[in-house]
């Protein structure tokens, strides 16, 4: 709501409306003129590279990527969720594509993207069926989409399109981005726009406490990149809404967000029918904030408090209803998330032990670990001692 016009004007700039007025109103992030696109400058490209933090080759750890590929990526390009029945989902494919770009591995990127489109793009729109299970007839388990997976895949395609100057990737990115914006974002409601977790199942028509959102589906670093291929939508406003919700969705004593949040009447509340937990989903929030270059302590405050003392048992899963520890994210790779948060907010160095990922972790913590290292290498090199 608040920045509606200012941010909308970005789009008008992208569309070439160089209003004198608009010139005074370019929002803080993009410095479009400084962009250095891979091939052929134009306005659309410029917006995406605005922050000049391209993902390509930003992982900086070839060994970790080789190990990741050998453990989770098949030669067909399927990214396997090893802790979850060896299934795949749009999220795992999107993460795999992002990491392949970050590792500068075009062959792997092409394999993963080929598999993704050939197996998950079974819907009539450009979104992806979210769940795929091996040795089933048919392998698709659910044709609903998951917007985090959709966003991750589209974002990876934008990065690949620019990094490797490939118009086909950019075209595919645009198709997905357009359908995310048109079919899963509540742009035409009172109040700020909300990103639904999927096209079906979470809206006000579908649930008494709907719309229900998942804040960890707001992939903050992706939004300015999607704006590069689908400039007619107000991604900036969507991101602003998400950041605002990070500040508002704080439940219980611990003031932590739950995984699933009801936005009935515009007030964030833990959604009914889901455990009111801060858990595996929401743990990605600080990762995405840091990847987007957001270092303002306010966004991280309750997380920094939660993680103030390192706990060898693993990151706690918090029941926001009573503040109790409901479980542990036990694999050691998760510890990169608190470290990255402290790095983004206060420049704290990443512990040396976290700079080399373990070779025996499951898909999810291993993925978050590599993404966090990518973020650190891309934006917070002093935390890596560089």
């Amino acid at each position: 709501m608040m920045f509606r016009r200012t941010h909308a004007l970005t789009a008008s700039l992208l569309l070439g409306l160089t209003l004198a007025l608009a010139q005074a109103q370019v929002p803080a992030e993009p410095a479009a003129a400084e962009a250095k696109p891979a091939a052929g400058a134009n306005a659309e490209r410029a917006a995406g590279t605005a922050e000049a933090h391209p993902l390509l080759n930003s992982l900086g750890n070839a060994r970790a990527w080789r190990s990741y590929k050998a453990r989770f990526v098949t030669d067909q390009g399927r990214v396997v969720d090893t802790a979850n029945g060896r299934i795949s989902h749009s999220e795992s494919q999107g993460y795999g594509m992002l990491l392949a770009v970050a590792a500068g591995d075009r062959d792997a990127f092409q394999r993963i993207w080929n598999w993704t489109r050939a197996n998950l793009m079974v819907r009539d729109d450009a979104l992806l069926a979210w769940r795929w299970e091996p040795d089933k007839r048919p392998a698709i388990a659910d044709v609903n989409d998951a917007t985090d997976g959709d966003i991750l895949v589209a974002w990876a395609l934008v990065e690949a399109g620019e990094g490797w100057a490939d118009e086909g990737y950019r075209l595919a990115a645009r198709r997905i981005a357009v359908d995310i914006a048109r079919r899963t974002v509540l742009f035409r409601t009172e109040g700020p726009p909300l990103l639904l977790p999927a096209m079906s199942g979470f809206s006000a028509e579908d649930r008494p406490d709907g719309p229900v959102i998942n804040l960890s589906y707001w992939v903050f670093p992706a939004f300015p990149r999607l704006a590069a291929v689908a400039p007619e939508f107000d991604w900036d406003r969507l991101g602003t809404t998400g950041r605002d919700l990070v500040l508002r969705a704080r439940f219980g004593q611990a003031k932590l967000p739950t995984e699933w949040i009801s936005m009935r009447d515009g007030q964030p509340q833990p959604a009914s029918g889901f455990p009111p937990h801060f858990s595996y989903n929401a743990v990605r929030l600080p990762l995405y904030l840091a990847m987007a270059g957001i270092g303002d302590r306010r966004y991280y405050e309750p997380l920094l408090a939660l993680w103030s003392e390192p706990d060898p048992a693993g990151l706690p899963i918090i029941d926001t209803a009573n503040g109790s520890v409901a479980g542990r994210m036990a694999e050691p790779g998760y510890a990169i998330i608190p470290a990255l948060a402290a790095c983004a907010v206060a420049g704290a160095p990443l512990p040396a032990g976290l700079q080399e990922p373990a070779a025996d972790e499951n898909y999810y913590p291993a993925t978050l670990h590599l993404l966090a290292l990518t973020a650190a290498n891309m934006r917070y090199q002093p935390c890596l001692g560089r």
Partner: protein
Amino acid sequence: MPRPLNPLRAAGPVLLAVVGSLGWSASAAAQPAPVRTGVLQLDERRGAVILDTPQMSGGAEIIDESALRFYAAQRQGERVQAEIARLRRRHPNWTVPADLDTLKPSPPEEAPMWDLFTAGRFEELRTAISVRQSTDPGWQPSEDLARKLNRGTLRSAARAAVRDGAWSDIIARVKASQEPVQNLDIDIAWTLAEAYARSGDLTQASAVYRTLLTEQTDSGLRLATVQKAMAAMPIASVEPLLAIGSRDADGADEFRAIRLDVTRARMVAVLHGGQAGRIEPAELAALGEQARRLGNPAQIALLGWYAYHRRQFREALDWFKLAQSRGGDAAVATGFALSLREMGQTREAEDVVFAWRASSVTNLALYIDIMERTLSESSGTAVEPERLDRFAKVVLATSSAEGAQALGWYAYNACQFDAAADWFQRAVGLKPRESAVLGYALSLSRLKRSRDYLEVINRYDGLFPKVVGLVFAEPDPQSRDTGPCGPAPAAAQPVAAAPAWVKVPKPTTAASIRPLPVLRGEFPVAVAAENPLRPGDGGAGPTRLRDGEYLREVRGAPLLIARRVVGVGPMPYERYGFALLPSWNGMDRASFLTGPPTPPVGTLAQSETGTLIQAGSSRPAQYRDGERFGPFDTAGAGRNEPRIAGQDR
């Protein structure tokens, strides 16, 4: 395109500068530039626009009078005169403040502190004060110094906040200073208002601007305040401030100098679905006249988009054509093509976006959409071979699933089943949606490639009822021998009578497919669940696999009985009593769906369902972004506003 300036990044003082592209009326030009000390200097010759630049160069600037005021308070007449002369040299339009004689002298022991102050060394000044207080506990700086220090600190804090975007800091600092808004230096007050606006508190921001407009009598500063408000807030929040503007004896609005800026801001707001004041036909006409005179393609294009938004496509077309002739960019080409299409000149639209496809992915997508529509509508009319050729090349180069599928149906309907199968095979590798898989299966059936045909049908058992329906279809005597290509398989897609002489180019299929042997019968047959089709090498080049580079997967035995898929309707064989296994989450009944699910209320797609192309027509059932593309697609209101005649010109 001029380089967009970024006010939030810039660290320098607030400057008013001039953007050369805007002409101004003679009345504005005739006004003397208002000049005030310590503040700003407006060049009204042409449209003033608020800009920030890091350097103190050009335009106007804040004039530092602190030294002058210090000498005056100390009654150091010679130095006062020297400083006045210096300031006049540097700032020719500067005038001597009237209150120099009334300034109270500060105590002599403050002299070194004033030196620190005039040097901007506030931290050292604060240290000096506390050092002094440690030796002389009752000592306080003079009121003048304390206030100046406070403001100086505020100013540097404001600059830092603007630079870092730390808006909450500046708000907190001003609050802590306990200065009422009207006592703040005006540039600090502007920064405060902007801070409120940037952090989402438009009410507070408006209140600050309103206070300034109420208290401030200087016309230049009043105008600048409105411009500041326009830069920081949506025009809807600026409208009440505009209404504060006074009218002179002739009834002329005091803010008329920026009326075209206001009109433009209102148009942009309307295009984005926001609220805005009424756009007067006279203002729109003036804007059009100015745009034509200056020939700036971006400004002309704004008029084009505004006309397009109001569905005045003829006028939109004229504006975009003009913008193109003045060097318009890829976005102008988009508007041009969309307007052409709305005017029924699809062929011309196609050529425009084809020519501009490389400079914007929007135009590339629009080109493919236009061709897709053209091919699906081309029943009975030939599409020239060179148009087909250039489209096929683009489809191959960009791995467009939509394009491959469109070429597949076009070839199929032209009875070129070989080409159809090739294009559909690509489409199924790129995006195996039901319509592509159906086309592929039908083409394979026509070509009597029964093993491939059965493999495809079995792979999508449980997922695509129409595809599975091919092997369960009742023979329909009506459909026999009636199509243009001879006997058709059951349940064929609506076939347009395409002329057989159109040669559809074939893609070069790079993928090698090793179909599984058919185990028994037609259906069910055990097939691998993974889709083996690939669109070719995709530009990455084939790479030899190193041992252990990728995860080796052990596949289980393919299954014969399908399970339910969440979100999919009943399978055709269920009517014969065959059952499916439960879905992954235990559901054992078909999803209650008669077609693809619709997007939720509140999405852009849902708000346009009235114009959705219905499934079952020969046109693509799903949205293509190009079908509904608008440059300002988040626009909420006004799409169907009644046309107001004569408003554009």
